[in-house]
């Protein structure tokens, strides 16, 4: 690198850019370690051709889980979600478990950050809390065929009694 002649401006700029990126990385690292903010992930497989008989998805819907959490299982298929309507309480952790019986789908609750790919052969899982009671629209956000734009369901968040 001896042949490199970088002017003073260049050097200042490269330092500034470098520091900015290191700051970004430090923030990410801090959030990951101190606040546990990590990319979502869940590793679990399922036979996509047998999901209707699989005890995990035979009766998709809402159940009460241990530790007061609410468990929602939902099955994506061309071009609908089962169940078509989900009711959960506000301000309680809700864990979603999803899979597909055919092609890839997406599961997105509009107006929230609940968003996951739904891939045949795999179970997607994430937990969230709904603070605002009301009706939400759930849409499929991965192209799945000619009825992709029709694929939706409803989430109703009920205010705690």
């Amino acid at each position, binding site marked *: 690198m001896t042949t490199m002649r970088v002017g003073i401006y260049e050097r200042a700029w490269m330092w500034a850019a470098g520091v900015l990126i290191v700051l970004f990385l430090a923030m990410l690292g801090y959030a990951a370690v101190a606040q546990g903010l990590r990319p*979502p992930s869940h590793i679990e497989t399922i036979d996509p051709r047998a999901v209707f008989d699989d005890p995990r998805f035979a009766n998709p819907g809402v159940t009460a889980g241990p530790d007061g959490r609410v468990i929602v299982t939902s099955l994506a298929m*061309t071009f609908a979600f089962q169940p078509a309507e989900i009711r959960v309480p506000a301000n309680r952790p809700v864990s979603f478990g999803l899979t597909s019986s055919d092609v890839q789908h997406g599961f997105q609750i509009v107006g929230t950050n609940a968003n996951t790919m739904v891939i045949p052969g795999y179970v997607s899982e994430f937990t969230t809390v709904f603070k605002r009671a009301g009706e939400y*629209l759930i849409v499929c956000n991965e192209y799945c065929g000619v009825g992709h734009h029709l694929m939706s369901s409803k989430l109703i968040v009920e205010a705690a009694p």
Partner: protein
Amino acid sequence: MSATANRDDRLATANLGVAVAAFGVAAFMAFMQALSRANLELPGRSAGMYYLSVTAHGVLMAIVFTTFFIMGLGVAFTNAGLERRLRYPRTAWAAFWIATLGTVMATWAIVTGKATVLYTFYPPLQAHPAFYIGLTLVVVGSWVWSFVILSTWTAWRNEHPGQATPLEVYGMLAAIIVWLVATIGVAAEMLFQLIPWSLGITETVDPMLARTLFWYFGHPLVYFWLLPAYVVWYMVIPRLAGGKLFSAQLGRVVFAMFIVLSTPVGFHHQYMDPAVPSGWKMLHTFLTFIILFPSFVTAFTITASLEVAGRARGARGLFDWIGKLPWGDPTVSSVLLAMILFAVGGFGGAVNASFATDSVVHNTAWIQGHFHLTVGTAVALTFMGTAYWLVPRLTGRELELGLLAKVQPYLWFLGMLLFSIANHITGLMGMPRRVFDATYQGSAIAERWQSLTAISAAGGVLLFISSTFFLLVMLGTVLAGKKTASREIQFSETLQPEPASSSIFDRLGVWAAIAVVLVLIAYAYPIYSHLSMPTFGSPGYKPY
């Protein structure tokens, strides 16, 4: 000796010709899509047609237009930069024909409705084998082209021992190395998964493995598009603007960094996927932020070079150099406008790259707003501007319909501003991408998106007019342009003296080796552990 004696201009022109034709078809489809999305009742409008059209638009723009344009540019810049013909011109023609045959096969499958799987072709959506084989041939053609450019460069190096590779060629070589490393992923997906499966030789595929291989390829693909555009920003624009490049050596640093860092970042497209371990997603996040660095440096170098140009044209104050730039030259204005929108796209990119914010925008209209700024403008508008400058030099015909050429970049800029802003906002409001009709059976929530889809459609109309101008200028130039003898292809001079001799930067093998090591670190273990986990395959589906 004439300017063109050492050149393969017909080959370069043929490649650009396919690129422009693909662009024209894809732009027309896009126009219909943008109108359809706003629920205008067009004749023959149907969901099936919409998804077919999006497939054609995505494949023809993102794969065919870009790859052929880059192949043409690579030939022209290698000729002009090394002052040398290609080492194997006949092989390079074979590359052109292989890629063209592949394009015809894939396009046939799409327009006959046998491959409505979009340009990401995620299995288990299954297309006709001609779609997969056609796209594979496009890649094979690009490999043959890569081989010809690389071997031309090694021949030049032997003829000029110890000389530094000129930056315009260096950048193209960097793009080629990124491409060769990246296409391993999609080639594996095609050859081991999709082609045998679509032919009925295997019964099932693993959709997660396919996604991982696709995005191993899919992210560096964007650098394969971007680096040739950067070459134009570095080596063409300063000269056309009346200045000099600030520093070519800094350009070498930038391109070498892209070689090293382009590939091990693909999991940032899979933040919302199951079955990819969180820690590996995290590693790719870190690398994604590091690869911002060479783009920051580029922003500085190009801006500084433009300031030099503005001052050479008589600017005195702090910012009046911007106004002194030749905004009426369609090549310069294309690139300036492309750079402005690219900066906006960069901010959006930081949102996408942070997994917490990505969960809000993943697979929403925000994404289509984002990549129409990056590939759809930073790259595509740069390429159009480049064509205004290059095609006359390749064909020996003056640019025809110059007024349309002058207006075209501004129309694109305006159209893209409307299109992109509208899509960013509807995306934030939760509207998914890739939907024929976003009304959701009259849902009140979806109702709020509708006025913005109309703005997006208005942007689409401007973009379509702009595309038409571009096509008319190209056609007019090739068919009716006045003959001209000024065919020199000249590159920017540099402000800092160029190194007299080659340096570590010219040892491309070293950079490629570092890249491969990083790729192994980022991918070998996750792919290995995925393969050693018991998984269930999926049979093919054609719900289109």
